[in-house]
């Protein structure tokens, strides 16, 4: 039986919802609407001359090989971050779920990186990986490995993936740990009695029961990698070398804020907005199914 509390009147609910609605309107609906209008216009930085160009900004973008390259790069970047952060988080969660001494301390420590601002995280990684200043970077170069992420595409990509994934491990870890703890002990005990060994038990019992968490985290990680990594990438490589680490959000920033090409930048924002809406819809579906389970 579901219990409901019903408030009389209209004023109170409207009043309670108002701050959120106003915030959404001012900080989302209005700017998003402006971005859509800008994406259909060509305008100088100061807004002195505006010309309506319809879908020209979009067709220019889609015809631009650099934009398509950036989209492909972003897909690779997101997949790598999701795989790395979720893989590591799952491993850590499985071990932290065991009965070990000081479990609470390990768990707290694992959650720390989540609290670090992206730019600060980037500086930490620079101190480790910089080829002349960083501890690990200097060690690699001394041992004959030509390490220089500022001039090698693949190295630069791995550095930004590593730094971004590291920050997300904490978040994934919490969810995996909660997911693992929700698996009834009796099921794993029964499997153990039947003689299933560690890996087999994990593969056939734990993983399927963890599937909803995996699916949920996959969506969250993709959204994180695509949109929340700007600070880390900008501070670490600024999109370089060449365009090796220029993801779609970095390109929006560069075209809009540095280059002041508002039309193209807005068109890119609108495309990204469509992508977020699609991913969020997917996330709600996943969450909804999870609740129904």
């Amino acid at each position, binding site marked *: 039986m579901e219990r409901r509390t019903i408030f009389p009147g209209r004023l109170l609910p409207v009043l309670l919802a108002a701050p959120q609605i106003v915030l959404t309107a*001012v*900080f*989302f609906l*209005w*700017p*998003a609407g*402006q*971005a859509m209008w*800008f994406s259909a216009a*060509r*305008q*100088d*930085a*100061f*807004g*002195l*001359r505006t010309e309506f160009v319809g879908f020209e900004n979009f067709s220019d973008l889609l015809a631009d090989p650099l934009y398509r390259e950036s989209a492909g790069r972003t897909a690779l970047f997101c997949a790598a971050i999701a795989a790395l952060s979720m893989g590591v988080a799952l491993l850590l969660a499985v071990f932290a779920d065991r009965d070990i001494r000081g479990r609470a301390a390990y768990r707290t420590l694992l959650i720390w990186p989540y609290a670090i601002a992206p730019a600060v995280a980037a500086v930490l990684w620079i101190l480790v990986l910089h080829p*002349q*200043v960083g501890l690990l970077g200097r060690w690699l170069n001394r041992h004959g490995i030509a390490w220089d992420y*500022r*001039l*090698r*595409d693949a190295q630069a990509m791995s550095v930004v993936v590593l730094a971004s994934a590291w920050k997300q491990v904490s978040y994934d870890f919490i969810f995996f740990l909660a997911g693992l703890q929700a698996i009834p002990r009796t099921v794993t005990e029964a499997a153990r009695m039947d003689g299933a060994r560690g890996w087999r038990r994990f593969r056939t019992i734990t993983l399927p029961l963890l599937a909803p968490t995996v699916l949920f985290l996959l969506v969250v990680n993709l959204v994180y990698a695509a*949109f929340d990594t700007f600070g880390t990438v900008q501070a670490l490589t*600024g999109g*370089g*070398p*060449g*365009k090796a680490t220029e993801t779609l*959000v970095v390109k*929006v*920033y*560069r*075209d*809009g*804020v*540095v*280059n*002041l*090409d508002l*039309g*193209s*930048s*807005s068109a890119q*924002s609108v495309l*990204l907005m469509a992508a977020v809406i699609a991913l969020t819809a997917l996330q709600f579906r996943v969450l909804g199914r999870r609740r129904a389970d």
Partner: protein
Amino acid sequence: MKRRTLIAGAAALGFHARAQDSHAQAQAGRARVVFWHAMNSALNDEVNRICAAFNAAQKDVEVVPVFKGTYPETLTAAIAAWRAGQAPHLVQMYEVGTGSMLAAGPAVKQTWQLIGESGVAIDPAAYIGAVRGYYSLPDGRLASMPFNSSTSVMWLNADALERAGLDPAKPPATWPEVIAAAQAIRAKFAAPTACTTAWFPWIQMEQFAAMHDLPFATKANGFEGLDTALLVNAPPFVKQLDRILSMAKEGTFRYTGRDNSPDPVFYSGEAAISFNSSGGRADIVKNAKFRWLEAPLPYDPELTQAPINSIIGGASLWTMTAPGRTPAEYKGVAQFLSFIAQPARDAEWHQNTGYVPVTLAGYEESKRQGYYDKNPGADVPIKQLTRGTVTPNSRGFRLGRMPELRNIVYEEVERALQGQQGAQAALDNVVNRGNRVLREFERANRA
């Protein structure tokens, strides 16, 4: 996402300006001049000091300096504020933003207009030619006010040169001499990195073009029209890039990142020869634990025997408009600008910050005070800036979206340094991609 920041910023500015207005009324009678700048840490203190000195020197105007972040952030903030009708009176704009500001029409009051309206005398001829040229219209009228200017020079580690058997008293003057010195440094293991450069597009392309009197773009580097096109895939530039690529290949040159990120590579003693801004002097004095010297940028003897002036970097001050701004406020701006251009002020700014003096009188004043006797080499940038006669090729650049053009140079050079393309292909790509950016700017800014 960006739009959201802009709007939020504009809203915050609105509140801020309102708070300032009420504060202004409290100080009855004094015109308030809000001055946005991008000078952080020690330079920020220096800006505050100048403003305080101006405020103490007279009673009609009060200048309020506000630090707004990096150069690009200051530019974006100024644009957002103008769109919201809340622009500052004065904004510091980096030299590559000059093209954008010139296209800003009614958003700015160019210096010659300001001089004419306010009646405050500011003589353009007082400024060093290479400084004035960058911020002037083709007919010589000043568009913005020269403020903090630097140029690029060659920094050398004297200890490393000696270890390599070279004479620090005779630093290399030409590119072949730089290559020979770098080879000696590498052969004797005198430093881990023989040679490196900061600000690649500015120093190795733009300065190179100016000093050798080569056109960087058509239409007098963009001074004579928006329909300008890049010319940097011409043979002298290809040769210049090729030279650096060969040095990288033989291990005498190392690329150490974009913009100013190579700074510490010189301070730490890692690199023996570093091409960087002359404005780094104060940091080098503070950080370098070895003997060092400052020398002019090398030239290519096959192109010229007498290189002319290099160009400047740094920023200038633009006067901005806003609804309801009074003539008294503009006059206050003009008075402040004429105050900071006084020889004593200019010399003090130059000596305290490491930027070059922007006026000839400021240079003379520093000479008279014996500054260059106490700081040998500190006049190298000024001599390099005032060398020869300024030509249309060495006046500076008037290209729209110049920060993006520099990004393109970085990207293509980085790909070349990784061996993905040769010098000619890299510069062809720069020209093709750069011209697309210039055409887009032209279309967005056509009157």
